[in-house]
């Protein structure tokens, strides 16, 4: 807590596109009142000053090299609450796609004969390295959800992140299900909260918010097979943002 009694918060970035941090800046423009009740001590995207004393840390980006780990651990040591910001930090996100190819091949593809110069490993969610208290899902995060999470944290409450499938939101919006139009969609296993944006605009959900706690994978698979997809097709749809989770599932099943 700072001398003015405001909780101190800090933002950090790892392997990411900074889209979530930009969304934070946008949310703060819509809700400047939040700045009256917190003190931001570190936020590279928005300010130069750097404070090392904070209670809440928002971390954007996945961990994609061993040398990121000490920095993450230091953040964990300092912060009372660590929040993963967006799909990269929460799930590994698109960065984790790298794991679908042998690491050496990936490095050679990017850096050619200089591949050895660069340190990297399979990209992973930050929860694979440190304990994470909460995650704000999405690629990018939802502006309003960010505000409601911060407000809940300030009130000492659990952030209101839905744990039901996207289809619920999609139906509430009155959308015609994409499956009836011959498209596929991961809505049934995906965590709601984005307002089912993609299906509302006629595009398939690719689970950027990750899966719900108990997704019915078996029936999802049946639906996808019924829609004419091969196992290969299903794997590619399932791995857009959630390669790390899919690999974990496969490993658990042996």
């Amino acid at each position, binding site marked *: 807590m700072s001398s003015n009694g405001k909780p101190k918060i800090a933002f950090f970035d790892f392997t990411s596109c900074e*889209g979530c941090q*930009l*969304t934070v800046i*946008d949310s703060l*423009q819509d809700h400047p009142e939040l700045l009256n009740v917190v003190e931001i001590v570190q936020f590279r995207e928005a300010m*130069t*000053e*750097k404070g090392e004393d904070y209670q809440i840390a928002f971390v954007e980006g996945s961990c994609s090299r061993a*040398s990121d780990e*000490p*920095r993450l651990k230091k953040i964990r040591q300092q912060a009372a609450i660590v929040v993963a910001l967006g799909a990269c930090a929460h799930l590994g996100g698109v960065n984790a796609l790298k794991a679908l190819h042998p690491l050496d091949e990936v490095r050679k*593809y990017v*850096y*050619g004969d*200089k591949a*050895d*110069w*660069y340190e990297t490993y399979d990209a992973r969610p930050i929860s694979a390295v440190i304990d994470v208290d909460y995650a704000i899902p999405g*690629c*990018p995060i939802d502006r309003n959800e960010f505000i409601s999470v911060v407000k809940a944290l300030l009130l000492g409450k659990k952030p209101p992140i839905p744990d039901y499938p996207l289809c619920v939101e999609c139906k509430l919006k009155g959308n015609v299900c994409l499956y009836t139009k011959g498209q596929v969609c991961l809505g049934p296993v995906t965590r709601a909260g984005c307002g089912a*944006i*993609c299906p*509302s*605009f*006629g*595009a398939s959900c690719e689970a950027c918010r990750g899966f719900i706690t108990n997704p019915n994978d078996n029936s999802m698979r049946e639906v996808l097979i019924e829609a004419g997809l091969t196992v*290969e*097709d299903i794997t*590619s749809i399932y791995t857009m943002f959630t390669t790390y989770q899919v690999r974990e599932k496969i490993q658990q099943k042996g």
Partner: protein
Amino acid sequence: MAGAKAVDAVYDVDPPRTEKMLRELLYSAYFVADHTTHFYALAGPDFVIGPDAPIVERNILGIIHKVGLEIGGKVILARKFGHNVIEMIGGKIIHPCTSIPGGLTKGITEEQRQEIEKMGHWAVELGHFSLKLFEDIVLKNSTYLDLILGDIYTHRTYYIGLVDENNKVNFYDGKVSVVDPEGNRLGKYAPKEYTDWIAEHVEPWTYLKFPYLKKVGWKGFVDGKESGVYIATPLSRLNAADGMATPRAPEEYEKFYKTLGGKPVHQRLATHWARLIELLYAAERWVELATDPEITSDNFRTIPTEKPTEGVGIVEAPRGTLTHHYWTDERGIATRVNLIVGTTNNYASLQMSTNKAARALIKGGKVNEGRLTDKGNPFKKLCIQIEKASLGGLSLMEKLIDADQTIIVDAIDTHQFPKGTVRIFKLKDLPDLNSGHTASIHDTSLANAIEVGRLICWNLINIFQAFVVYLPAKQSVLMLSNCAI
């Protein structure tokens, strides 16, 4: 957007006119929002408030203080309107979700069109207002003009930018025009020809690559006609084109070159002005597209019939030319991807600018406080420090200040000498002073950092040599420094 175009190319499909206009409309609104933010919140404060003003005032609040509350409101509204258009057409502001092979999932209604048009007119006003503000505050002030025209930030490089069939600036479609430091057009390339024109250089101290003009070649971090270093920015887009195609932007384009002494303009500070001219252009294009009778048509997708293979898409992002190259299997699943993103094009030039500006602004050991961004108090006195994390040159240099004697023991893997070899380097043997960073984009090499530190008059006189030991392990970096206090 480049991705959407690359996907069209992968499926060898030409989307209908309405679709192209909708994407360009989304993009024009995005440019307005981004250029406004960039000018008023990121770069403009240095100008509007004054480059010598204390750092704390050089932010958006400082601008509001100087030119009135009205502007702060305008910036926020420009973002809001820009975002509204993006959401209407693209679904999401960041990573829009409506582009599919051959078109969009959705068009716009007449009601939405009217709303978009109204916001577009407001944006045009904002464009004029911003240029007027720039004229009153910057162009009418000879100190500023001298700063722009002065040599500090000048690099005579190549320039690239997307142009239409009449060689006019275009953000969404066309060919990439390349001009040399004298302003002669070297040629134009279509997206799929980019590999004939652009190659990428790598350095061991950065993950980011340095794209350069293949036909000219990589000659290091230097400017001039012999060096393949180019830039892709608002300034370069104006330099690479023959003009602009909307109603009022051409006047501003002409005035720009008249004031700054002809084409091409090499002074990097003129980029702020170029950005505002582009802001007006984007706003005018927004209105043109929103008032086209075909914009509300239902013909917003061509169903692809070809098997997907490989494709390249190029658009201009606010900070530079964006190239996406995808290869897919027959199901359209990406197997390989190559991206050259906006700022990456400018990475080599950025290295050169930082070095040049630091040398010019930090003179005789005295730093003009107003001009340097505060990096915190660097005067740390250390006895023996063991660092395990990777450090950039600046942070390492800070740790050397006031030491009586410094020996740096570093374990690195060079692939040149057998592991375990011990070699001694003098400071001057360390990599090129112009070279970049090791840990972050804002950092620089140790040699360069020490040079800067000395110019600032920090006590760094006793760094006489660095021992570099090639140990079998890669991870340890050990730095010893004798007690100074």
